[in-house]
């Protein structure tokens, strides 16, 4: 119970904390648990760890740096507010925040689309990487890019196209079928195959 006392001095939280500890492995899960207790330092580290992953994802979807910064703030604000509801049994913190970020980014894009702006850019644009963020990180990013081959880039073109239009473009399967002039069943199959292939590339959860 030493750990319990350290957490909050409340025996009634001890059981939960221990269960959480058993169920969550990895530093990210630990950070979320600490965020749930109002630990701002944990939030700061959680942000530093995940924002560089989440930001390019958001940027890729919303495409406008100001919108992306807004969405990024919104997503992390939600993680701070919802840290107490995070259930490690339902997924890793990475999946927790990435799912949330993708959803908020698509929300934003749809809101923008409702305002009459162009939504889905050309396929070439859609597959382009996010533009560099502010600051002098361009060189680093380029170095990263050389060193790490994107998992998506290793997908067969048709599968990659389907998953990019859905996941980053926010199109539904029917919209994708219309756009690619393919049968709906083909699109559904491509999406499933793409995920299956991606899982082979990036690996399953431990």
């Amino acid at each position, binding site marked *: 119970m030493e750990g319990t006392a350290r957490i*909050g*001095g409340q025996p009634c939280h001890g059981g939960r904390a221990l269960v959480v500890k058993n169920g969550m492995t990895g530093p990210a899960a630990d950070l979320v648990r600490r965020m749930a*207790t*109002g630990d*701002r330092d944990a*939030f700061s580290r959680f*942000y530093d760890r995940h*924002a*560089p*992953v*989440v*930001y*390019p*994802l958001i940027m890729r979807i919303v495409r406008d*740096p100001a919108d992306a*910064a807004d969405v*990024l*703030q919104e997503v*992390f*604000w939600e993680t*701070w507010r919802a840290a*107490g509801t995070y259930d490690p049994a339902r*997924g*890793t913190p*990475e*999946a927790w925040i*990435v*799912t949330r970020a*993708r*959803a908020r980014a698509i929300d934003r894009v749809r809101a923008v689309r409702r305002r009459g702006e162009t939504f889905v850019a050309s396929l070439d644009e859609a597959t382009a*990487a*996010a533009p560099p*963020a*502010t*600051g002098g*990180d361009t060189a680093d*990013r380029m170095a*990263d*890019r050389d060193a*790490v081959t994107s*998992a*998506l880039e290793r997908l067969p073109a048709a599968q990659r196209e389907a*998953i990019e239009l*859905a*996941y980053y473009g*926010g199109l*539904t*399967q029917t*919209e994708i079928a219309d756009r690619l002039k393919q049968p709906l069943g083909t699109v*559904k*199959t491509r*999406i*499933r195959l793409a*995920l299956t292939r*991606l*899982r082979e*590339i*990036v690996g*399953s*959860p431990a």
Partner: protein
Amino acid sequence: MSHETFETLAAGYAVGALDGEDLVQFEAHLAEGCARCETDLREWRETLARTAVAEPRAIPPPGVKDALLRRIEQTSPRVTDRGRWLRWAVGTAAVALAAAGFTGMYVAARYEAVLGRMARETAAVKQRVERSEAVLREQLALYRDGVALLRDPATRVVEMRGVGTAAGAAGRVLWNDKIGGQVFVASLPAAPPGKAYELWTISGRTPRAAGMLALDAAGQAAQPIAATPDGRVDVFAVTLEPEGGVPAPTGPIVLASK
């Protein structure tokens, strides 16, 4: 339907591509608690997360983190000891504020009631004063006119005597053939319900209505009388008539001159 279909739907759901019937069907299936689909969905989400992690990273705009930390600073933290204390303090302050608010509202309501009553009373007083002022002005005008009448050598004073039931009553008329005059009445008994006293100016044998007498509680009246077209009045009389008056006298005479 084989479960294979749902596996495909789970993949579509994970990338947010389901729509129409597929979306409805899969969400209903999930709601039924299909553990297999739950697991599939979780696994696809992990796959997408790891894909994102494997993508090139980018440093986010520095302002975002600052804004978040400020935002967190401005809101009360959750359940640490410090947080609990703060929450207690904030809660207590909130209760105190609410109490103050209620007290304020109560006091305000009370004061509003009092102020409202005072305003109503003030308005009533003002109305009474205005009424009194109007009456006084009328009387003052009457007295001025009376003084003017008395100064005029052509003005005469005509006495009226009570008749019959009004034998104890008395009346006096200041009369000027050119200007008109004023009538003063005293000790006239109150008119029966539906009846009122009417004043007449009589030239020769022709009575002319000269207005209804406005008696006060003491049976007194003082009011002007308009000049007659021919400028001549032989007799002044008061009769008891139906309320509202009549063009020619019909009732008993209560006061008469001569």
